[in-house]
């Protein structure tokens, strides 16, 4: 039975079937991988680069980064403070969801992009206080439309920087490379 199967696979038609099978598996895997590299769908195609070009600081919209664990996503009230004075807000199709959110009072359901798993406890404040700039982890936002991650936030990424910033200071290294600093 198995010998007959192998014999069939060895003829040209069988080889083509094997090739198609391999291609199918490979393309599904490649598609699966590509979905993890794409920025998620957002309710509004928020252009980071336009806002940064106007000179708006990161901390104006994400003030939590300097104060606590979460940087925060602004409510539509903050967007509206500027946007109600801009004529384009009334006409632009892209901004229609913002106008609707303000009028109905329902929050915009933004999709978080930069995330860490539940068992990791990240604190923005400590990183800003240590002199890190936003773009060191989140990339240059003046070049992107919808926020996307320039790198995967995995433990190697965090730990490399922690060890580098500890330098020769053993006490600081103990603290920064300690499991309990992030996992609890």
């Amino acid at each position, binding site marked *: 039975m198995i010998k007959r199967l192998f014999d069939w696979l060895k003829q040209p038609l069988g080889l083509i079937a094997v090739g198609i099978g391999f291609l199918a598996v490979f393309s599904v895997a490649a598609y699966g991988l590509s979905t993890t590299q794409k920025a998620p769908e957002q309710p509004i195609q928020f252009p980071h680069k336009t806002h940064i070009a106007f000179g708006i600081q990161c901390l104006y919209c994400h003030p939590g980064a300097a104060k606590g664990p979460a940087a925060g996503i602004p409510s539509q009230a903050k967007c509206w403070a500027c946007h109600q004075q801009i004529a384009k807000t009334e006409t632009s199709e892209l901004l229609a969801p913002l106008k609707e959110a303000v009028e109905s009072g329902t929050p915009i359901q933004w999709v978080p992009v930069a995330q860490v*798993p539940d068992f990791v406890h990240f604190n923005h404040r400590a990183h800003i206080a240590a002199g890190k700039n936003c773009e060191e982890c989140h990339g240059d936002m003046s070049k992107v439309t919808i926020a996307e991650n320039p790198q995967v936030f995995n433990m190697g990424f965090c730990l490399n920087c922690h*060890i*580098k910033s500890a*330098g020769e200071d053993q006490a600081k290294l103990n603290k920064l490379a*300690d499991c*309990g*600093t992030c996992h609890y």
Partner: protein
Amino acid sequence: MATVSDLKITELKLSEAEGGKWGMVIDQDICTGCQACVAACAMENNIPFVGDEDSGYGRSMHWIRIERFWEGEYPEVKMTPNQPMLCQQCGSATCEPVCPAFATVHSQAEQLNLQVYNRCVGTRYCANNCPYQVRSFNWRDYQRPEPLPNQFNPDVTVRRRGVMEKCTFCIQRIHKAQDKAKSEGREVVDGEFTAACAQACPANAITFGRIDDPESLVSQLSKQAHGVKHLEELGTFPHITYFKGG
């Protein structure tokens, strides 16, 4: 520049194991056994409700429990005082060397026994090797019907099935207090924060704080002559002192 391999896993020095950083004092003479600490701990640390069936199998999950024993022979039996039992955060812990996945490690920075949930593969060696029997294992993904998920503490990981867990000395509160102190440019003050069990105790039987600070309340209390450390003879260097019959 130092690398991960340079992290010195030196032999734990005895003085270091004895010293520690965070400690607790529990006064059994004022403990009424009201279980407020047990409830507070479960709420603070997202401990699941196991239910009667699994509890019957001895799979109940608590990071702190109130123990009571019979003393003497019938009919002259006497109840021992209430004894809150939680992880003793041993300086030389028996749970640590047996973990094949390095999930239960000693924190160099905080001098605590850590449980790293994402490393744990659920061999349960640590729980079997703990002389205080204070580790609990997630035998299932226990159901939390609505609206119970609303009271999750966002600062603590919600553990999944197959993971060991235990008292952390409320390390999330330690980090929060340290972060707050650092943002204000000062050191953490004694009594500024406390563990959930100590906070909930209506009789103030539990005191938590720095034992390496000679000025702190907990280090002064732990020097009292009638203080007892449980199973000290095993060489675990527990960091919780009990008062009984003082």
